[in-house]
């Protein structure tokens, strides 16, 4: 297995009295695709926000090799609706201190298939296209780790397929990928490993086959059964 590009150690987050995440530890290897699954309110978005550094943890720590970038694609599009696709990419490439912003923007326009829409304002694009720009901004700096929060949620099947092809190519190039999803089939299809979270607690880390063991062939049913066994 490749060396870890991201390590979470006893990660926890509290919002006042409420514990959103507790004692979550795992490692991510370069080129690995890790799916974070769990019911609503499990703490998936909180975990990704902590890993991305968008939120400070209450306990524990996140570490990655020095100098490695972490790309973040939040669940809600985080781009400027009054700027064009090109202007958004160019701005974030500069803010990310990318060595050659123009080349990075060109690559991203090519890989996301947005070249023809480059001069259109984000506010005028469909939800799916805005999400593509959102993903492009997150991956602009060619990060060692990419964190994607429900990246395919607003995409149609064709766009989804295109997205996974793009992410798969990134992983093959050595980028570690962590993504959250409600779609167990998507996790099974694209992830090497899964983390199962429920009520802020890490219940399982491993392959989906391990989760399925002894619970029947239907993965979704096996997942629900697993949660029930654990009292969720």
């Amino acid at each position, binding site marked *: 297995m490749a060396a870890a590009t991201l390590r979470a150690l006893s990660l926890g987050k509290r919002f006042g009295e409420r514990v959103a995440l507790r004692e979550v530890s795992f490692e991510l290897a370069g080129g690995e695709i890790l799916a974070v699954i769990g019911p609503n309110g499990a703490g998936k978005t909180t975990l990704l926000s902590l890993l991305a550094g968008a939120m400070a943890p209450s306990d524990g720590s996140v570490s990655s090799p020095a100098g490695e970038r972490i790309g973040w694609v939040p669940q809600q599009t*985080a781009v400027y609706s009054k700027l064009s696709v090109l202007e958004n990419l160019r701005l974030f490439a500069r803010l*990310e201190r990318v060595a050659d912003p123009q080349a990075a923007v060109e690559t991203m326009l090519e890989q996301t298939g947005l070249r023809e829409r480059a001069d259109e304002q984000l506010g005028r694009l469909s939800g799916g296209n805005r999400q593509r720009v959102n993903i492009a901004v997150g991956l602009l700096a060619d990060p060692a780790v990419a964190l994607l929060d429900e990246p395919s949620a607003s995409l149609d099947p064709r766009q989804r397929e295109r997205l996974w092809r793009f992410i798969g190519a990134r992983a093959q190039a050595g980028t570690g990928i962590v993504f959250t999803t409600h779609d167990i089939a998507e996790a099974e299809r694209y992830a090497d490993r899964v983390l199962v979270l429920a009520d802020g607690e890490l219940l399982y880390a491993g392959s989906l086959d391990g989760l399925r063991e002894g619970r029947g062939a239907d993965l979704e049913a096996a997942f629900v059964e697993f949660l029930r066994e654990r009292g969720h």
Partner: protein
Amino acid sequence: MLALRWLLGKDLRILRRSPVLSTLLILYPAVVAVLIGLALSRSPGLPRVAFLNEIPPSSAVISLGKTQINITSYESHLFKALKLVPVKTRAQALDDVRDGTTLAALIIPATLPKRLATGDETAFIRVVYNGSAINESLVQSAIESKLGQANALLAAQLEKVAGSYIDLLLSGGKLHFLGETFNVLGLRASERLVDKVVAQLPANSPFYPRLAAVASFAKIAVNNLGTSKAVIGAVAAPVVARNEFVNGRRTPLDFYAVAVAVTVSLMFVCLLLASGMLALEREENTFGRLARGLVRPGALLAEKALLAATCAALVGFAMLAGISIFVTLDWTRAGLWLLAIVGGSAAFATLGVTLGGLVRDVRAASLVALLVSFPLVFLALVPAGAVAPGLYDVIRVLSAVFPFKPAFEALNAAVNHSSPSVWVAIGHLAVLVAGFGVLARLSLRR
């Protein structure tokens, strides 16, 4: 109807679950309304004026012929129109005007009795203003109306004395002077005597034309001096108010309005732009992306404040330049205008980013900016001494922690030479920039 009830219940529940917003919505307008109401309704009616009487007690009584007039007895007429704050020295009186403790200073100079007694020079009282046209208007009308009453009483006394002298000149009588008594013939008796002498002279007497001229003069003098008593009464204003300004210059009302207009513009541009642009980062969800190391929070705040302040400064300077076409402004002070505009804009912009940090969407940020600024502008323009002292202290504290008043004072000083000086106001604004800067930084942690 049922749907309306459900919706109403839902909205009330939402408000109950937003305690901070609900408290602000109810408490803030209530507090401001009470303050404005008190400012409007509980004005003491009498403007506060520093009072200094420089007349030594020994000189307070003047003698005009047989009549003695005590000047201090006329002070009470002025007291009725003003809330006088006694001071001991002229410097203290000026300080009170300068720092806003009183609207003006009323000084009765030591030379007043002498000037009244001799009539060689106009007797006057000094009224010192801080240069604000608003303050001046509050005091001036009160002083002038009461001074008019005091003058009327004093003039009646003087008219009586002057009238008795005129009667003596006209009709004759006894004049007491330096302990001696003189018999004065009087013009009427003189006229009669001369007429008799003229009647007895032969027509060809060489004295006839000369005495006829004297008789004619006596007739004219009797006729005209008789009416002069009425003239004395009509024009008498023994004491006049001489207006002065602590900084040597009065701010006319239209110049004052210029400073108010530009400051209000700076405020709106800065508050709306700074709060709106920062709130937009949250509304577009880009704040989280930026805050994870792409931009330091302080730099983000500084960028928004700089943008708002620059736009406001350009608007403010353009306004002054435009106004100068219609109102004569002193362009040699353009550097100070710019300093005041930049200082005011910086403070408003810092307040703007604080509001933008607290509120998470642009529309709410704009509403909060308007909600905060309107009443505080009104309160900041309440003149010192125009409301009860306790209430004014509350208003003064509120105005001091909001940038409008110091920004207005800086601009007013830069444009109109008014007090306090530009530098004092800029110092105040710098403190506010630092304070709101810290609050803005804390607001981003929400």
